[in-house]
């Protein structure tokens, strides 16, 4: 059921879950009632187990941590005679300190992520354009190095950006795309590619580009080539790679 999934996905980890419990029960984060919160936390884990959901190991590690803290707080403080000394020195560490520090640290960034989320939404409401091509404008003096202030890493960035950059706004109206690839062209390409590879090629390699149009055209080209019996497709077993091969008369 979807509620279960929502519940699972609702937390980014054990710290997130603990913060939730702290909010829910209006607990002072600097004075966490370890016994109560451990019970709540374990309840949550048990519910998840009953629902037979996978519990990430981090949740179990935190459960163990809570139990350790709980047992430490339950231990008798010290021998009577040491007590006065203890008060004077005040060195005894609260077993909860480390957890509190982590929770507060995590909470800071959880809040920062909310800020980023707001900025992300705000930014998505404004549009920009890609830089215009100014290559037609002549420069008076060409620099000696045509790629001054560019490194190979800029090349990588540029390459990655091609696939990650925001989708370009496009008219929703039908408009003939200028670089439409004719199916015939792609059919010829496929046949020559197969010839070049001794008549065989896996299905995958015929789709080298993550480009929608290219995918569709290639797929249609393959269907057309099968229909005209220029190629055939072979799959030895289920889920195996499909091999595209030229039919005998075309292979020559």
């Amino acid at each position, binding site marked *: 059921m979807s*509620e279960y999934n*929502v*519940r699972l*996905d*609702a*937390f*980014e*980890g*054990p*710290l*997130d879950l603990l913060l*939730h419990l*702290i*909010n*829910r029960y*209006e607990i002072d*984060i600097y004075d966490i009632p370890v016994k109560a919160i451990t019970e709540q936390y374990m309840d949550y884990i048990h*519910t998840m187990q009953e629902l037979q959901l996978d519990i*990430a190991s*981090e949740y179990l590690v*935190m459960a163990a941590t809570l139990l350790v803290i709980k047992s430490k707080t339950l231990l008798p403080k010290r021998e009577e005679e040491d007590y006065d000394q203890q008060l004077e020195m005040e060195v005894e560490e609260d077993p909860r300190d480390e957890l509190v520090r*982590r929770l*507060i*640290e*995590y*909470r*800071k*960034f*959880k*809040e*920062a*992520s909310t*800020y*980023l*989320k707001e*900025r*992300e*939404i*705000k*930014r*998505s*409401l*404004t*549009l*920009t*354009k*890609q*830089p*215009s091509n*100014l290559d037609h404008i002549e420069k008076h003096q060409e620099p000696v190095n045509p790629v001054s202030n560019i490194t190979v890493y800029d090349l990588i*960035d540029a390459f*990655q*950006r091609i696939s*990650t950059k*925001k*989708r370009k*706004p*496009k*008219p*929703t109206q039908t408009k003939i795309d200028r670089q439409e690839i004719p199916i015939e062209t792609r059919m010829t390409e496929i046949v020559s590619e197969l010839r070049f590879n001794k008549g065989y090629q896996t299905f995958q390699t015929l789709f080298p580009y993550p480009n929608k149009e290219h995918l569709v055209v290639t797929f249609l080209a393959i269907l057309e080539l099968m229909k005209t019996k220029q190629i055939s497709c072979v799959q030895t077993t289920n889920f195996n790679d499909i091999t595209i091969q030229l039919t005998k008369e075309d292979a020559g």
Partner: protein
Amino acid sequence: MTTRAEQRAVIEGLLYVVGDEGLEAKQIADVLQIDPIEVEELMQEMKDVYTKRDRGIEIVEIAGGYQFTTKAAHISYYERFLESPTTSSLSQAALETLAIIAYKQPITRTEIEEIRGVKTEKPLQTLSAKLLIKEVGRAEGTGRAILYGTTKDFLEYFGLKSTAELPVLPEKHEEEGDESEADLFFENFESILDPADNKGDEQ
């Protein structure tokens, strides 16, 4: 001699041409052969002009440069025109990871995981693939773990001038009022499981 009106015109043309690549004050100063201080003044004048009702673009400062963007108020018009919705968004895991990197850079994956309390490999991959973070060096010591930092694209993505523009992290804060939607789901769910338990929850 160029008049002030002409200078503004040249800046407008330049901002149009560079688009989302942005334009640094220094570049404007170079082109107009004026003092960077004068650039600031001109930009302020221009920003005011673009706020007018019949203008559809405005000047924003992002990643250390000026650039034109359309106005947020007009997004509903542009959505009619766009092929796909503009709402691409990062997951909560990615946002948390990014927040940690933005404030703590340079930082290793292990350090991030210590703060988040969960594995963070996938969010890091997503953020790298989106060019929002990058390797900025290697940590000292054994293993020489990768150190991550934010990129110019990060500033661009969130419309930030620089990482210094990020708000100061709160140290303390009040205990209520930050229930997320996820929490609401959880509470609804719990009230289904155990209605009696939900009593004390009212604020």
